[in-house]
Protein backbone atom coordinates (compact mmCIF):
# COMPACT_ATOMS: atom_id res chain seq x y z
CA UNK A 1 0.00 0.00 0.00
CA UNK A 2 1.24 3.47 -0.86
CA UNK A 3 0.65 5.81 2.11
CA UNK A 4 -1.43 8.85 1.26
CA UNK A 5 1.40 11.21 2.17
CA UNK A 6 3.65 9.58 -0.43
CA UNK A 7 1.13 9.53 -3.26
CA UNK A 8 2.54 11.77 -6.03
CA UNK A 9 -1.03 12.95 -6.76
CA UNK A 10 -1.78 13.98 -3.18
CA UNK A 11 -3.67 17.27 -3.06
CA UNK A 12 -0.83 19.31 -1.61
CA UNK A 13 1.42 18.32 -4.51
CA UNK A 14 -1.25 19.02 -7.12
CA UNK A 15 -2.00 22.41 -5.59
CA UNK A 16 1.69 23.29 -5.80
CA UNK A 17 1.56 23.00 -9.61
CA UNK A 18 1.55 26.36 -11.29
CA UNK A 19 -0.14 27.44 -14.52
CA UNK A 20 2.11 27.15 -17.51
CA UNK A 21 2.60 30.59 -19.00
CA UNK A 22 5.84 31.84 -20.49
CA UNK A 23 7.26 35.23 -19.57
CA UNK A 24 6.01 36.55 -22.91
CA UNK A 25 2.51 35.24 -22.24
CA UNK A 26 2.47 36.78 -18.76
CA UNK A 27 3.43 40.12 -20.27
CA UNK A 28 0.58 39.71 -22.77
CA UNK A 29 -1.90 38.95 -19.99
CA UNK A 30 -1.03 42.04 -17.99
CA UNK A 31 -0.82 44.21 -21.10
CA UNK A 32 -4.27 43.04 -22.13
CA UNK A 33 -5.58 43.65 -18.61
CA UNK A 34 -4.32 47.23 -18.66
CA UNK A 35 -5.85 47.84 -22.08
CA UNK A 36 -9.18 46.46 -20.86
CA UNK A 37 -9.21 49.03 -18.07
CA UNK A 38 -7.85 46.51 -15.59
CA UNK A 39 -10.95 44.39 -15.97
CA UNK A 40 -10.91 40.85 -17.24
CA UNK A 41 -12.05 37.27 -17.02
CA UNK A 42 -10.15 34.02 -17.10
CA UNK A 43 -12.51 31.61 -18.79
CA UNK A 44 -12.44 27.89 -19.37
CA UNK A 45 -14.16 24.60 -18.62
CA UNK A 46 -13.98 22.62 -15.39
CA UNK A 47 -10.49 21.52 -14.41
CA UNK A 48 -8.70 23.68 -16.99
CA UNK A 49 -6.61 25.67 -14.50
CA UNK A 50 -8.62 28.87 -14.07
CA UNK A 51 -8.17 29.03 -10.30
CA UNK A 52 -4.50 28.21 -10.60
CA UNK A 53 -3.95 30.97 -13.13
CA UNK A 54 -5.94 33.42 -11.01
CA UNK A 55 -3.83 32.58 -7.96
CA UNK A 56 -0.64 33.02 -9.93
CA UNK A 57 -1.85 36.35 -11.28
CA UNK A 58 -2.84 37.50 -7.78
CA UNK A 59 0.59 36.61 -6.46
CA UNK A 60 2.24 38.71 -9.16
CA UNK A 61 -0.09 41.61 -8.46
CA UNK A 62 0.78 41.48 -4.76
CA UNK A 63 4.43 41.50 -5.69
CA UNK A 64 3.78 44.68 -7.66
CA UNK A 65 2.28 46.34 -4.60
CA UNK A 66 -1.41 45.74 -5.24
CA UNK A 67 -3.83 44.96 -2.43
CA UNK A 68 -5.58 41.78 -3.51
CA UNK A 69 -9.09 41.18 -2.22
CA UNK A 70 -10.28 37.60 -2.68
CA UNK A 71 -13.77 36.29 -3.28
CA UNK A 72 -13.99 32.50 -3.56
CA UNK A 73 -17.20 30.88 -4.75
CA UNK A 74 -18.02 27.32 -5.70
CA UNK A 75 -20.97 24.98 -5.89
CA UNK A 76 -21.16 24.84 -2.09
CA UNK A 77 -20.94 28.61 -1.71
CA UNK A 78 -22.93 30.35 -4.40
CA UNK A 79 -23.86 33.74 -3.00
CA UNK A 80 -22.01 36.76 -1.69
CA UNK A 81 -23.82 36.49 1.63
CA UNK A 82 -22.73 32.88 2.07
CA UNK A 83 -19.20 33.79 1.01
CA UNK A 84 -19.02 36.49 3.67
CA UNK A 85 -20.42 34.17 6.32
CA UNK A 86 -17.81 31.56 5.47
CA UNK A 87 -14.96 34.03 5.37
CA UNK A 88 -14.55 33.69 1.61
CA UNK A 89 -15.32 37.33 0.84
CA UNK A 90 -14.92 40.61 2.71
CA UNK A 91 -18.13 42.00 4.16
CA UNK A 92 -17.81 45.36 2.49
CA UNK A 93 -18.49 43.74 -0.89
CA UNK A 94 -21.74 42.12 0.20
CA UNK A 95 -23.36 44.49 2.64
CA UNK A 96 -24.97 47.82 2.16
CA UNK A 97 -23.55 50.98 3.60
CA UNK A 98 -22.52 54.36 2.46
CA UNK A 99 -20.81 54.59 -0.85
CA UNK A 100 -17.89 56.50 0.61
CA UNK A 101 -17.24 53.70 3.14
CA UNK A 102 -16.89 51.20 0.34
CA UNK A 103 -14.72 53.60 -1.58
CA UNK A 104 -12.42 53.89 1.42
CA UNK A 105 -11.69 50.19 1.33
CA UNK A 106 -10.72 50.45 -2.30
CA UNK A 107 -8.71 53.61 -1.90
CA UNK A 108 -6.59 52.38 0.99
CA UNK A 109 -4.12 51.16 -1.58
CA UNK A 110 -4.31 50.09 -5.22
CA UNK A 111 -6.94 47.43 -4.84
CA UNK A 112 -7.77 44.56 -7.15
CA UNK A 113 -10.68 42.23 -6.53
CA UNK A 114 -10.10 38.66 -7.67
CA UNK A 115 -13.25 36.61 -7.86
CA UNK A 116 -13.01 32.88 -8.39
CA UNK A 117 -16.21 31.24 -9.58
CA UNK A 118 -18.17 34.23 -10.84
CA UNK A 119 -20.59 31.94 -12.70
CA UNK A 120 -21.96 30.78 -9.34
CA UNK A 121 -23.58 34.15 -8.67
CA UNK A 122 -27.18 34.83 -9.52
CA UNK A 123 -27.83 37.65 -11.95
CA UNK A 124 -28.98 39.87 -9.11
CA UNK A 125 -25.92 39.12 -7.00
CA UNK A 126 -23.64 39.75 -10.00
CA UNK A 127 -25.40 43.05 -10.72
CA UNK A 128 -25.01 44.18 -7.10
CA UNK A 129 -21.37 43.17 -7.02
CA UNK A 130 -20.64 44.82 -10.35
CA UNK A 131 -21.84 48.14 -8.98
CA UNK A 132 -19.48 47.90 -6.04
CA UNK A 133 -16.62 46.75 -8.23
CA UNK A 134 -16.80 50.00 -10.18
CA UNK A 135 -14.70 51.55 -7.43
CA UNK A 136 -11.96 48.93 -7.51
CA UNK A 137 -8.77 49.77 -9.37
CA UNK A 138 -8.80 46.31 -10.90
CA UNK A 139 -10.97 43.21 -11.25
CA UNK A 140 -10.14 39.71 -12.41
CA UNK A 141 -12.69 36.92 -12.35
CA UNK A 142 -12.90 33.31 -13.40
CA UNK A 143 -15.90 31.94 -15.23
CA UNK A 144 -16.80 28.93 -17.28
CA UNK A 145 -17.99 31.05 -20.18
CA UNK A 146 -17.16 34.52 -21.48
CA UNK A 147 -19.53 37.43 -21.02
CA UNK A 148 -19.33 38.71 -17.44
CA UNK A 149 -16.07 40.58 -18.06
CA UNK A 150 -13.86 40.96 -21.15
CA UNK A 151 -11.93 37.76 -21.73
CA UNK A 152 -8.39 38.06 -20.54
CA UNK A 153 -7.28 34.47 -21.03
CA UNK A 154 -8.91 31.31 -22.31
CA UNK A 155 -7.77 28.24 -20.37
CA UNK A 156 -7.45 25.10 -22.41
CA UNK A 157 -5.99 21.71 -21.72
CA UNK A 158 -4.65 18.96 -23.90
CA UNK A 159 -3.06 15.54 -23.32
CA UNK A 160 0.38 17.11 -23.51
CA UNK A 161 -0.36 19.34 -20.53
CA UNK A 162 -1.61 16.38 -18.52
CA UNK A 163 1.56 14.51 -19.41
CA UNK A 164 3.75 17.46 -18.36
CA UNK A 165 1.96 17.80 -15.04
CA UNK A 166 2.35 14.12 -14.29
CA UNK A 167 6.03 14.32 -15.10
CA UNK A 168 6.39 17.25 -12.73
CA UNK A 169 4.67 15.22 -10.05
CA UNK A 170 7.23 12.50 -10.57
CA UNK A 171 4.83 10.05 -12.21
CA UNK A 172 5.34 10.28 -15.98
CA UNK A 173 2.76 8.95 -18.40
CA UNK A 174 3.13 7.61 -21.89
CA UNK A 175 1.48 9.86 -24.44
CA UNK A 176 -1.11 7.25 -25.36
CA UNK A 177 -2.17 6.95 -21.73
CA UNK A 178 -2.32 10.72 -21.33
CA UNK A 179 -4.50 10.94 -24.42
CA UNK A 180 -6.81 8.21 -23.14
CA UNK A 181 -7.19 9.86 -19.73
CA UNK A 182 -7.69 13.32 -21.18
CA UNK A 183 -10.43 11.96 -23.45
CA UNK A 184 -12.06 9.94 -20.67
CA UNK A 185 -12.41 13.03 -18.46
CA UNK A 186 -13.33 15.45 -21.28
CA UNK A 187 -10.22 17.50 -20.73
CA UNK A 188 -10.84 17.96 -16.99
CA UNK A 189 -7.27 17.70 -15.76
CA UNK A 190 -8.31 17.95 -12.10
CA UNK A 191 -10.48 14.85 -12.38
CA UNK A 192 -7.79 13.01 -14.32
CA UNK A 193 -5.30 13.71 -11.53
CA UNK A 194 -7.80 12.53 -8.91
CA UNK A 195 -8.26 9.30 -10.85
CA UNK A 196 -4.49 8.88 -10.98
CA UNK A 197 -4.38 9.33 -7.22
CA UNK A 198 -6.71 6.38 -6.80
CA UNK A 199 -4.81 4.20 -9.24
CA UNK A 200 -1.45 5.03 -7.71
CA UNK A 201 -2.79 4.33 -4.22
CA UNK A 202 -3.26 0.80 -5.38
CA UNK A 203 -6.04 -1.70 -4.81
CA UNK A 204 -9.55 -0.59 -4.05
CA UNK A 205 -9.73 2.97 -2.74
CA UNK A 206 -13.23 3.16 -1.34
CA UNK A 207 -15.39 5.09 1.01
CA UNK A 208 -17.55 2.13 1.91
CA UNK A 209 -17.11 -1.67 1.82
CA UNK A 210 -20.15 -1.98 -0.45
CA UNK A 211 -18.49 0.15 -3.12
CA UNK A 212 -15.39 -2.01 -2.97
CA UNK A 213 -17.39 -5.21 -3.48
CA UNK A 214 -19.26 -3.67 -6.40
CA UNK A 215 -16.09 -2.66 -8.19
CA UNK A 216 -14.20 -5.92 -7.57
Amino acid sequence: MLPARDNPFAVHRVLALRYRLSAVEWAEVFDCWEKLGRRGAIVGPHGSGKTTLLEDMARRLEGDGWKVVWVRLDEQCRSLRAAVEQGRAPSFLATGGKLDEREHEFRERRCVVVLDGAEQLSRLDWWRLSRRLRHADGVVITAHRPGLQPTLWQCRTDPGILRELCAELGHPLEMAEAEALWTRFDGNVREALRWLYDRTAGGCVVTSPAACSASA
Partner: protein
Amino acid sequence: MNESDTQEMFVEVVGAAEGFLPGQRLESNLLWALPEAPKLIEARLFWRTRGKGTEDAEVVDSHRIERPAAAGKETISLRLPEAPYSFSGRLVSIVWGVELIAEPSGKSALAEFVMGPDRKEVVLNAVSNAPGT
Protein backbone atom coordinates in the same frame (compact mmCIF):
# COMPACT_ATOMS: atom_id res chain seq x y z
CA MET B 1 12.32 14.34 7.21
CA ASN B 2 13.63 17.90 7.03
CA GLU B 3 12.56 20.47 4.48
CA SER B 4 13.53 24.07 3.99
CA ASP B 5 12.62 26.61 1.34
CA THR B 6 15.89 28.41 2.06
CA GLN B 7 19.41 27.67 3.28
CA GLU B 8 18.83 30.24 6.00
CA MET B 9 16.52 28.29 8.29
CA PHE B 10 16.92 24.88 9.87
CA VAL B 11 14.97 22.90 12.42
CA GLU B 12 15.79 19.53 13.93
CA VAL B 13 13.63 17.42 16.21
CA VAL B 14 15.93 15.56 18.60
CA GLY B 15 15.23 11.84 18.52
CA ALA B 16 12.90 12.02 15.53
CA ALA B 17 14.27 8.78 14.11
CA GLU B 18 12.96 6.85 17.14
CA GLY B 19 9.50 8.42 17.13
CA PHE B 20 7.53 9.79 20.07
CA LEU B 21 4.83 8.67 22.45
CA PRO B 22 1.57 10.60 22.93
CA GLY B 23 1.98 13.30 25.55
CA GLN B 24 5.75 13.22 25.38
CA ARG B 25 7.90 16.35 25.45
CA LEU B 26 10.22 16.81 22.52
CA GLU B 27 13.28 18.99 22.07
CA SER B 28 13.88 20.91 18.90
CA ASN B 29 17.04 22.67 17.71
CA LEU B 30 16.36 25.88 15.82
CA LEU B 31 18.91 27.62 13.63
CA TRP B 32 18.58 30.70 11.47
CA ALA B 33 20.90 33.03 9.54
CA LEU B 34 18.89 35.68 7.71
CA PRO B 35 20.04 38.73 5.75
CA GLU B 36 17.98 40.95 8.07
CA ALA B 37 16.73 40.58 11.61
CA PRO B 38 13.12 39.39 11.46
CA LYS B 39 10.33 40.73 13.63
CA LEU B 40 9.54 37.29 14.92
CA ILE B 41 10.77 33.72 14.81
CA GLU B 42 8.23 31.08 15.71
CA ALA B 43 8.46 27.32 16.08
CA ARG B 44 5.12 25.58 15.66
CA LEU B 45 4.29 22.03 16.67
CA PHE B 46 1.55 20.87 14.33
CA TRP B 47 -0.19 18.03 12.61
CA ARG B 48 -1.62 18.09 9.12
CA THR B 49 -3.38 15.77 6.75
CA ARG B 50 -1.99 14.65 3.44
CA GLY B 51 -3.75 12.72 0.70
CA LYS B 52 -6.77 13.03 -1.52
CA GLY B 53 -9.00 15.45 0.31
CA THR B 54 -8.74 19.06 1.41
CA GLU B 55 -5.85 19.56 3.80
CA ASP B 56 -6.57 19.99 7.49
CA ALA B 57 -4.03 21.18 10.05
CA GLU B 58 -3.70 22.31 13.65
CA VAL B 59 -0.94 23.98 15.63
CA VAL B 60 -0.94 22.43 19.10
CA ASP B 61 2.02 24.24 20.68
CA SER B 62 4.40 26.99 19.73
CA HIS B 63 7.42 28.97 20.87
CA ARG B 64 7.88 32.59 19.87
CA ILE B 65 11.13 34.53 19.76
CA GLU B 66 10.31 38.23 19.63
CA ARG B 67 12.67 40.59 17.78
CA PRO B 68 15.48 38.05 17.35
CA ALA B 69 18.87 38.78 15.87
CA ALA B 70 19.40 38.09 12.19
CA ALA B 71 21.27 34.92 13.10
CA GLY B 72 20.86 32.69 16.08
CA LYS B 73 20.16 29.28 17.48
CA GLU B 74 18.00 28.00 20.26
CA THR B 75 16.88 24.69 21.70
CA ILE B 76 13.26 24.58 22.78
CA SER B 77 10.87 22.13 24.38
CA LEU B 78 7.35 21.44 23.09
CA ARG B 79 4.74 19.03 24.41
CA LEU B 80 2.83 16.61 22.24
CA PRO B 81 -0.86 16.01 22.95
CA GLU B 82 -2.40 12.58 23.38
CA ALA B 83 -3.82 12.61 19.85
CA PRO B 84 -4.10 12.41 16.91
CA TYR B 85 -1.60 9.65 16.21
CA SER B 86 0.54 9.66 13.09
CA PHE B 87 -1.55 7.70 10.65
CA SER B 88 -1.39 6.39 7.13
CA GLY B 89 -4.05 4.99 4.88
CA ARG B 90 -4.58 5.19 1.14
CA LEU B 91 -6.85 8.24 1.27
CA VAL B 92 -5.31 10.23 4.10
CA SER B 93 -2.21 10.45 6.25
CA ILE B 94 -1.78 12.44 9.44
CA VAL B 95 1.72 13.85 9.67
CA TRP B 96 3.33 15.53 12.69
CA GLY B 97 6.04 18.15 12.43
CA VAL B 98 7.76 21.23 13.79
CA GLU B 99 7.84 24.25 11.53
CA LEU B 100 10.23 27.16 12.02
CA ILE B 101 9.04 30.37 10.41
CA ALA B 102 10.39 33.91 10.24
CA GLU B 103 8.07 36.90 9.97
CA PRO B 104 7.47 38.95 7.96
CA SER B 105 9.52 37.19 5.26
CA GLY B 106 7.70 33.88 5.68
CA LYS B 107 10.90 31.91 5.20
CA SER B 108 10.55 28.54 6.83
CA ALA B 109 11.97 25.14 7.57
CA LEU B 110 10.23 21.96 8.59
CA ALA B 111 11.03 18.70 10.35
CA GLU B 112 8.55 15.80 10.41
CA PHE B 113 8.35 12.93 12.87
CA VAL B 114 6.11 10.10 13.99
CA MET B 115 3.94 10.14 17.13
CA GLY B 116 1.89 7.17 18.24
CA PRO B 117 1.63 4.13 20.46
CA ASP B 118 4.92 2.24 20.46
CA ARG B 119 6.41 5.31 18.73
CA LYS B 120 5.00 4.13 15.41
CA GLU B 121 2.33 5.45 13.10
CA VAL B 122 -0.98 3.68 12.80
CA VAL B 123 -1.24 2.06 9.39
CA LEU B 124 -4.64 1.34 7.89
CA ASN B 125 -4.45 -1.52 5.43
CA ALA B 126 -6.73 -2.34 2.52
CA VAL B 127 -10.33 -3.34 3.05
CA SER B 128 -10.55 -7.13 2.74
CA ASN B 129 -12.64 -8.58 -0.07
CA ALA B 130 -12.90 -11.94 1.64
CA PRO B 131 -16.44 -13.34 1.92
CA GLY B 132 -18.22 -12.36 5.08
CA THR B 133 -16.07 -9.22 5.70
